[in-house]
């Protein structure tokens, strides 16, 4: 297997508050290859955005990376200085945020923002930068780019703004795009268009994509592999199709079962009882055990390790026990 484009090993992120130190991410590891599309799924507070932000070293105080490595093309990003990091951030790795109105500067024209990004990373003349910017605007299917170039963000619709943000992310030909809930603020028809666009661009330019979302439907249609996070930990990783078809972890099963489209209309939905614990009160053992329908005694005391099988991994005592008995049966 080729060397991964980005590899995260045993990442731990803490937030030092006045009285306590919260562990927002614990022992998070995953990798992504060139041109691959990876989904990170979870509910709010699961740590998916913290994971994405820490890749680009965007965790601000009081948060800090307390352990682990983030290897991008073999270099550990956690050890880079601000100057070095700036050469990677926005250049080799781009990020798309949730709300396009917050990401774009309201007092600068679209064109200024695009060329500014180019000037920051490349030595280009103004006409050259303009030409590249125009090309990217055409790539994201913006009608009449010349007219849009001199407009301000407020003159554009939400979908159009998100296209501009995507064009900005593509300016420097990055190898990896991290999209944090890129369509949550948009309507379904626009969401479908933006997702089509992201998919098309990633495929045509062989860009890797990390898609962070709470929407399992979006993940199932766009990504090849998915990670499910719960209370700061990866609980399951598998090819997306496997997760959707036969999720192993009880939490993933619950998430998928809770979707209205999985149940016959007007029937009660399969719900997960309780709520995700706050970071201050993560229970001992498996963090999911108070909500788990299959809870065992060991779940209450011992943090489950990963059971790995066929390129999928699950952090669950029950699944581990099942796999063991299966292995024994096949031996005998």
């Amino acid at each position, binding site marked *: 297997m080729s060397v991964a484009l980005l590899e995260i090993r045993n990442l731990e992120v803490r937030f030092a508050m006045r009285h306590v130190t919260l562990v927002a991410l614990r022992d998070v590891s995953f990798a992504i290859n060139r041109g691959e599309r990876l989904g990170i799924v979870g509910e709010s507070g699961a740590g998916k955005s913290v994971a994405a932000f820490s890749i680009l070293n965007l965790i601000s105080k009081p948060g800090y990376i307390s352990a682990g490595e983030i290897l991008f093309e073999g270099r550990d990003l956690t050890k880079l200085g601000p100057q070095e990091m700036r050469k990677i951030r926005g250049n080799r790795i781009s990020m798309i945020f949730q709300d396009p109105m917050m990401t774009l500067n309201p007092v600068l024209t679209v064109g200024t923002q695009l060329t500014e990004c180019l000037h920051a990373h490349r030595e280009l003349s103004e006409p050259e930068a303009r030409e590249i910017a125009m090309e990217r605007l055409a790539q994201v299917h913006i009608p009449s780019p010349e007219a849009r170039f001199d407009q301000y963000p407020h003159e554009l619709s939400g979908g159009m703004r998100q296209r501009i943000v995507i064009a900005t992310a593509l300016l420097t030909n990055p190898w990896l795009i991290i999209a944090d809930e890129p369509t949550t603020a948009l309507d379904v028809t626009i969401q479908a268009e933006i997702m089509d666009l992201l998919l098309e661009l990633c495929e045509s330019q062989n860009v890797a994509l990390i898609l962070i979302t709470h929407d399992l439907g979006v993940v199932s249609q766009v990504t090849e592999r998915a990670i499910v996070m719960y209370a700061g930990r990866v609980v399951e990783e598998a090819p997306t199709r496997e997760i959707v078809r036969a999720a192993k972890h009880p939490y993933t099963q619950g998430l998928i079962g809770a979707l*209205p489209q999985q149940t016959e209309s007007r029937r009660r939905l399969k719900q997960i009882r309780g709520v995700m614990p706050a970071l201050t009160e993560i229970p001992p053992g498996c963090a999911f055990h108070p909500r788990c329908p299959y809870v065992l005694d060991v779940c209450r005391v011992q943090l489950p390790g990963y059971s790995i099988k066929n390129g999928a991994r699950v952090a669950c005592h029950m699944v581990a026990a099942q796999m063991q008995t299966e292995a024994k049966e096949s031996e005998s």
Partner: protein
Amino acid sequence: MTVGSGRALVEVRNLAKEFPLQTGFLEQLHFNHGRISRVRESVKAINGVDFDVVKGEALCVVGESGCGKSTVARAIMGLLKPTSGEIRYENKRIDTLKGKNLLPFRRKMQMIFQNPYASLNPRMTVQKTLQEPVRFHYPDLSPAEIGEKTAAVMQSVGVDPSWTVRYPHEFSGGQRQRISIARALAVDPEFIVADEPISALDVSIQAQVLNLLMDAQEQRGLTYLFITHDLSVVEHLGTRVAVMYLGTVCEIAPTRTLFATPQHPYTQALLSAIPRLNEVRPNHIKLRGEVPTPINLPKGCVFHGRCIHANERCLHDVPRLRKAASGVQVACHAVEEGRL
């Protein structure tokens, strides 16, 4: 006019609501080519909406942001005064009522809002929040009876009645939404308008709240008007669906019929855009252009600029909701003429 078999509980007739952009006289004055002229623009949030809510059903109103679905909900509840049109509740016109005359309807109609962080008063304990409407609508009840009533309603939404002395910030988002539901149910309403009640919640909590809403409907025989943009929720909860686009209703149909055979071109595009599990990326119908501004509405059918089936007639004639099949109403010339 009733659709289906049941009796219409709420009738909305030709409802329109405009929000003026320039409210002050001086704001309206514009200086143009050496002349002063008075300009009055307005946002046409809804224009000519007609539908019935049948007793016992869950009518879902869907549409994209800005299509006027919340305005319809607020107008029905009397939170906004409609510019024109009529709203009837049990055959009595309510949009013109005021004060004492409106009071009995206020008890029968309750609303659940989108954001449980904003719709509960942070300075009132849950007990106060729940008891206030009961005390207001049932002045004859003793304090003990009011306490019993609110405890029972809290129990029914799955919030421990011993937590009544707590403040909203002590609860999670899902529990807060349960409390807002309890507040709506506390006065024994018949009709509940829920404006995006689950869109601020996480997936696992959404399922809990949807189940709660369905249970409450079954136990209390409630009628719902459910406003949402989430089509998979509509498919699950709604008995009938009204699809809105730019302030008009383009299609009303029983849920199953709508999802199986959408007729209006906009409904077809909207349904094809739902991200579904277990499916390879489907070819969704791409709409050209963007939603026009509700300040300058397009002439004729509001959808004509984005519709691939539009012809000369669509540019001039406003399509009216017409019966297309049993229980299905569509506002589209192409469907009516059989071109589609």
